Structures are given as structure tokens and as C-alpha cells.
């Protein structure tokens, strides 16, 4: 997993609540047996006017110019500014894979769905929960300033606006540690091999049908 320390990234606003993982990556792309290459189909049904299928040449498709990600001012964005309950619905990890592959490193929203939130951390993507009014202020600040960037520092747990305003955010310490160091969860867990084995022996002796 890629380490995350700090970025200074262009912000793109996605002004709708309850964005579900079906919208982030539609089901036809879930047929892939790979972990990469989902970026061109992130938000497929909103980004393109024609129906997308795996294997299509996306550069030849009909672009939805209205959709925010397609606007010239947002090309190269790394920070997705979103609304309540972002990432709800299906548990598909293809959603964070698609967002990461597209180039996002940070998602800011007032709230996230649990499974999606969890999945982000496993893929070098930092989801940040901020109070609703702070998110609203960021939407306003972005709208008023073309090329609006945010400096996000995971070590310090701060977000800094171009005008110097600083917002603090909270991240679970274990997840922060893993993200800062690009650590693999499985390797960490296997450090507790003996404890797992001891637990398993007791647990299965008590319930031999398991």
C-alpha cells in the first residue's frame, strides 16, 4: 500500500448526499479479476453519456460535460469534497480502487458509510470526517476560488486552506499509523500468531462443530 503523509491537492466538489458505491463504480466493471484499472470508469454513469462496458476505449465515449469531474478546472483533482453518507450501499472495494486509480488521495465529507470508510484506509485513500458546517464552508470557499487547493497533513491531522485557515481532523490512531507507514494489515496481524492459535484452540475445543 502506498504511504500517505501529506499532499497539497486540487479540490473537486461533488454536491450530492448519499453517493452510493454503485454510482462510484457500476456493477459491470466488477467483473474484472484485477485490482487496478478502474479509474477511467469511476462515476461512469455520470461521467459519460453512453453506456459503458468493460474493455471499451473510454477516450472514444461521449463525455457528459455537465458532470463536475469533466470540467476543465477540476482536472488533476486529488481531493474529493462530498456530502453526507458518502460510499453507502454495496461493500465493493472496487469503489476505493476506482477513486484511488482516478487520482484521489483524500475524500472529505460530513459522514461516510462504515464499510466504504474502512476500505479506503486499506488502499492509501484518506477519508476525513468534518462537521457539516465546516464541509459547507469548504464547498463555499471552493466555489469562490478557481484552482482551490487544500494542504492535508496526516501526521499533524490538519487541513489548511490557501488563506491560511486551518481545520483539525481526527483519525483512528491505528489506521493513521498504518497509512503513514504504508503497512500491510496481514503482516501486522500475523505478529500475533501465537495468540490467534491459542484462542482458536480454546474456541474450537468448546464448540467442536465449528
Amino acid at each position, binding site marked *: 500500500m502506498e504511504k500517505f503523509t501529506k499532499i497539497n491537492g486540487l479540490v473537486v466538489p461533488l454536491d450530492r448526499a448519499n453517493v452510493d458505491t454503485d454510482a462510484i463504480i457500476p456493477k459491470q466493471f*466488477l467483473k474484472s479479476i484485477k*485490482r487496478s484499472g478502474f479509474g477511467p470508469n469511476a462515476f461512469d454513469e455520470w461521467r459519460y453519456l453512453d453506456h459503458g462496458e468493460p474493455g471499451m476505449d473510454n477516450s472514444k465515449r461521449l463525455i457528459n460535460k455537465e458532470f463536475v469531474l469533466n470540467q476543465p478546472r477540476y482536472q488533476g483533482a486529488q481531493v474529493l469534497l462530498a456530502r453526507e453518507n458518502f460510499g453507502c450501499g454495496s461493500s465493493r472495494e472496487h469503489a476505493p480502487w476506482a477513486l484511488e486509480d482516478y487520482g484521489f488521495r483524500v475524500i472529505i465529507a460530513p459522514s461516510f458509510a462504515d464499510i466504504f470508510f474502512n476500505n479506503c484506509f486499506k488502499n492509501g485513500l484518506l477519508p476525513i470526517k468534518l462537521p457539516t458546517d465546516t464541509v459547507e464552508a469548504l464547498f463555499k470557499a471552493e466555489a469562490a476560488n478557481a484552482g482551490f487547493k487544500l494542504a492535508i497533513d496526516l501526521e499533524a491531522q490538519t487541513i489548511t486552506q490557501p488563506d491560511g485557515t486551518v481545520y483539525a481532523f481526527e483519525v483512528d490512531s491505528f489506521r493513521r499509523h498504518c497509512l503513514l507507514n504504508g503497512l500491510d494489515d496481514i503482516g501486522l496481524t500475523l505478529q500475533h500468531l501465537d495468540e490467534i492459535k491459542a484462542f482458536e484452540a480454546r474456541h474450537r475445543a468448546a464448540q467442536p462443530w465449528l
Partner: protein
Amino acid sequence: MSAQTLYDKLWNSHLVRQDADGTALIYIDRQLVHEVTSPQAFEGLRLAHRLPWRSASMLAVPDHNVPTANRAAGIADPISRLQVETLDANCKEFGITEFKMGDIRQGVVHVIGPEQGATLPGMTVVCGDSHTSTHGAFAALAHGIGTSEVEHVMATQCLVAKKSRAMLVNVEGVLGKGVTAKDIALAVIGQIGTAGGTGYAIEFAGSTVRNLSMEGRMTLCNMAIEAGARAGMIAADDTTFAYLKGRPFAPQGEQWEQAVAGWRDLHSDAEAVFDATLEIDAAAIRPQVTWGTSPEMVTSIDGRVPDPLAITDAVKREGAERALAYMGLKANTPINEISIDKVFIGSCTNGRIEDMRAAAAVARGKQVAPNVMLAMVVPGSGLVKQQAEAEGLDKIFIAAGFEWRDPGCSMCLAMNDDKLAAGERCASTSNRNFEGRQGQGGRTHLVSPEMAAAAAIAGHFVDVSKI
């Protein structure tokens, strides 16, 4: 020890270790596997030269991509076929039990787990699929995980987790005619919203829940995720044990007695404290129909499509406006005047034998309305299909003009050939009415099997309690 909730009991009995900040390792008893969210996990194992910790804890089945008609011809779409073949190859390589497409036991992963007795009370159950919450109906701690976690559980038999808060949804009273577990689920989501349960594990309790069959309990827990809760659960009782007894993966003989004795403790203690409680009056629930593009956009059959102008919250109002535009609905339209093009009865929410029976009872001796282009019934598993056929339900459906299909996820998410075309409107017994869920541009209304069958006959939504 102080009084514990069911969730506390399940959590504590699987806790391998816990750090000071609450990050815990919990032991996983059962991992269910399907073709969509597992290939990258198996690949990860191979790349790291790891083996599954305990292959016998896994049970695999292809369900999302499988065709529901003309199975003998195999899977036409080469990309879907590759995904299913990849599952077959991975299960073979790692020694994992799999019910392949041609197996009578094949079906939607959340239908076959309980049907086989592979889901048992007191277990922790995970699957790379959000509707794993279904299995909580058996007093199990069951929730969906991402593919990285699938790999993690394969490699370590543990999951890194933090304990959720506990919510009690207490449903009391007698359900009215034509009102089902599906309607309870939709009514709860309508009340607390799709994020209402975020961060919680929900326990469903109360006299109404105790009186539900296991099928109904599974429907209820299945939809917990649509309320934002990763896990839903229900205490174990005689209904639970009667359902499981004699199933292939369930303990037998003396072990069965020993198991049941232990399972009797799988309920919240009388004095247990929940972080949040919701009281629901069962008698007040009417058959539910969703009108929008999120399960919380729901009303009863007596209701009308809401008027966005009457919504004060700006984000909610815009959401409703967008939903009505997508759904092609006008504000204030009575729900029972909305006509439909297609009907889908099936999925892990409502693809069990009881659902088949309920829909067949409504369809018996009637005809699908001429404006309904396709009404399909997709049993949740091969065994559900077999049972339904033994009861003659297939004949009732076919005589009424429904199509009787082979088991799989089908038009619940339209990864196979069963999809809505843009603009088509569907009465569906599935669980998600998101934009494009049943096909790009397709319009989904979530309902119970009874309501779906009644809508198929009438050609529009009708109050099933009045027919």
C-alpha cells in the same frame, strides 16, 4: 458480570486481543465467498506466498454473474465467465468447498449459508458482500467486508475491527394483513434514514420479531445494511433451532444437544443497556413502496410521491428533486397510480421458499397485466427452486404469466443478462433502488413479494391487503 447485549456476547466470545485504543482482532468462524469480491483476495494470497488459515471455514458459490435461463449453454459473456471460472480454479487450488453453477445447492450466497446450516448461532460470519448482515438472524455476528479484509480473514482467520455501538429496534404488536418483514425493514429505514444505523450493530427484538419465521428474520437483518448498520441480529430461540436441525453443516446427534444448550444464552440480558433504542408499533405499518433512489425514500401504499417543495432541508430537497427526475415521477402522484413495466421477485432479501409461497398465493389463478412486459421469479437457490416445484408453485407462476428462472442474484443488481432498459419501471423485491442498480436508467421500486406479485397482476401498485 454486568448485563450484556447479544452483540456484547458475540463480540466478547470472539475477541482474540484488543489494543488500548480499542482496535481489536476478532476470530472469524465462517467466511462465505462469491466470485465478484474474491479474485483479488486470492491473488493477494498467492503474491504473498500465503495459504488460507483454515480452508474448511470457507464456503464458496458463484451467484452474481450466473445466468438464470438456459444454463446448459453456460455463461455467454466472456468476462462474467472468466470471473466464475476464476472462482472455480481458486477453490480447487486452495481446497475450498464450492457449490458450482450446476449444483442443486448453488444459489445466492446469503440464501445458501443458512440453508446449509453453514450459518450457526454464536458464529462470526463474514463475506465480501454487504448483505452478510442477513446471517445475523441466527444470533450470529455477521457483516460485510471489503476485498482486502477477505484476504486478511483468509490469511489470518481474524478481522481487525473496532466495536460498534449497539442499537435496539424493538418491534411490538401484530402485523396487519399483507404486511411483512420487508415492510418492517423499509418502515424502519424510512424512519431513521440510510445513515441512521451507521456505526451501530442493530438488534431486532420484540414480540413481532419473535413471531417472524427465520425467512422473515433474514429479510429484516438483510436490510440492516440499508439502514447503515453493518450488522443486524436477532436472539436465538426455538424457531432458530427448528430451522437449523438436520441441515448438512449443522452439528448432529449429541453435539446438536450440546450446541443448542449453549445457544440458548444468545440473547440480550434483561438489564442490558443499548446506546440507542427505537420503538416500532407493528400494527401501524402498512405495505411499503419506495418512490426514489435510496431505500429511505419510501412511503406506504396509501401514500403519495412527496413534493420536494415541501422539504425544508436543502440537501434533502435537492436529493428528492433529483430522485423524482430520475424516477420519472410527478410530485403528489398517489402510489397506487404508478404503473410498472417489469417485476422481479427474488434476491437475498426475498428469494426464499416463504417468499415464493407468498407471491404464488397472490398470483394463483390470476394473469399478469398486459402492460407488464416481464414478470420474473428467481428462486434464491437450487434447493428453494426444487422445494417450490415440489409444492407446484412454479406451475402457478407460469400459468399466471410469470417466468420461472434458475437461482442467482439476477436483476437485483443486473450483472448477468437480467436488466432493466433505460426508463423501465420495476416492482422489485430486492434491497436497493439506487440509480442504475437494475440496469442503467432503470427505475426500481422496492416492495415485498406479495406487493410485487399484486403489482404484476394489476399492472400498477395496489394494496395487497385489499385483494
